[in-house]
């Protein structure tokens, strides 16, 4: 095999490896194994398995569910995916954008009393950037898109 031919074969193999890996990740359903956060429905369905395990839970902050405990240390709210919700007790200062209807990802564990306990509360911004004064659309279905539950549905 000539030198040039050898190089071309190597190139072809390299491109195939590269393309193959990408195609596998795109089409191979690895999303099921690579779940960054659980939806409230998935968490509820897992039952006792979730208790004590280290888990990320994602969803929208259910409107009307936010409560601050008088001690000022604990924040209570519900995370919803539109179908089911999970009650969360967060012992942390929430990011400034935390509000009703916004996407959040909380890292923590399920307690046996039915509360999800977290010390790491992250706010998930959607892909909308608007100037101040634009009307807020609190359409939960629309907001839920930012949680990508259907894209990587199990």
């Amino acid at each position: 095999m000539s030198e040039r031919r050898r190089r071309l074969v190597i190139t072809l193999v390299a491109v195939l490896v590269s393309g193959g890996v990408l195609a596998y990740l795109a089409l191979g359903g690895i999303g099921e194994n690579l779940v960054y956060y659980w939806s409230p429905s998935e968490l509820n369905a897992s039952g006792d398995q979730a208790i004590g395990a280290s888990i990320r839970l994602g969803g929208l902050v259910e409107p009307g569910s936010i409560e601050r405990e008088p001690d000022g240390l604990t924040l209570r709210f519900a995370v919803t995916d539109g179908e089911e919700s999970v009650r969360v007790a967060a012992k942390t200062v929430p990011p400034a954008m935390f509000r009703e209807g916004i996407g959040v990802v909380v890292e923590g564990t399920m307690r046996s009393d039915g509360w999800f306990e977290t010390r790491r509360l992250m706010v998930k911004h959607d892909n909308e950037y608007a100037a101040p004064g634009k009307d807020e659309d609190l359409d939960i279905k629309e907001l839920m898109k930012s949680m990508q539950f259907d894209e990587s549905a199990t």
Partner: protein
Amino acid sequence: MKRLRWDAIIGLVGLLMLLVGSYIGLFAAPPERHMGEVQRLMYVHVPTAWISMLVLTAAFGFAIASMWTGRPKWDAVMTGATETGVVLGALLTVQGMIWAKPTWGVWWDWDVRLTTTLIMVLFFTGVLVLRSYVAEPERRATWSAVAVIVGYVDVPLVYFCVRWFRSLHQVQSSPETVASTMITPLRINAFAMLFLAIWFVARRSRLELARLRRESVALPPRRAPRGTAVPEAPQEG
């Protein structure tokens, strides 16, 4: 100036555009309704993201050209694009962390976008390190080109992962989801970053080509390496 090369002109245009775009982004564009002033980071973060991926895509193309032709020219341009991609990728990561803290509430999390971006930066840094360890020019060209081609797989992954997998990072915005007053500075800075990147790639390629030339001059055994005894004039006669 003695000679103003074409790449210097592109670099200057890029710099000017970056100044104009950033000025508009910082002082003329509105704050975001929820993010407030912090959203202004978009005008540097998003162009850096786009152009880092674009430059590494070019590196992928140059790697194939280098393998196809075996010419040092493409090897040099591939190196230029790889290094520029690494610099922009590293910058992108730091900008992202600075934006993440006030918005998400954390500096970092192992979500798929952040992780694949970090892999991208580390992998292409590795390609540059690999190059510095292989002394033989042809072998170096082949190995680093193959590494770029194989490792490039991560770049489309960085782009698409937010659509394929759940992540903390949001999916791509579009002109429909971004206020029109924010789009102008974003576009200006995107082109600014593109021109600056072209300038970087051109300069870095020139450097690599000069090094390759030096090597190929030094390589033939006609001239002994500096510091070794030169047995050309025997004393006994």
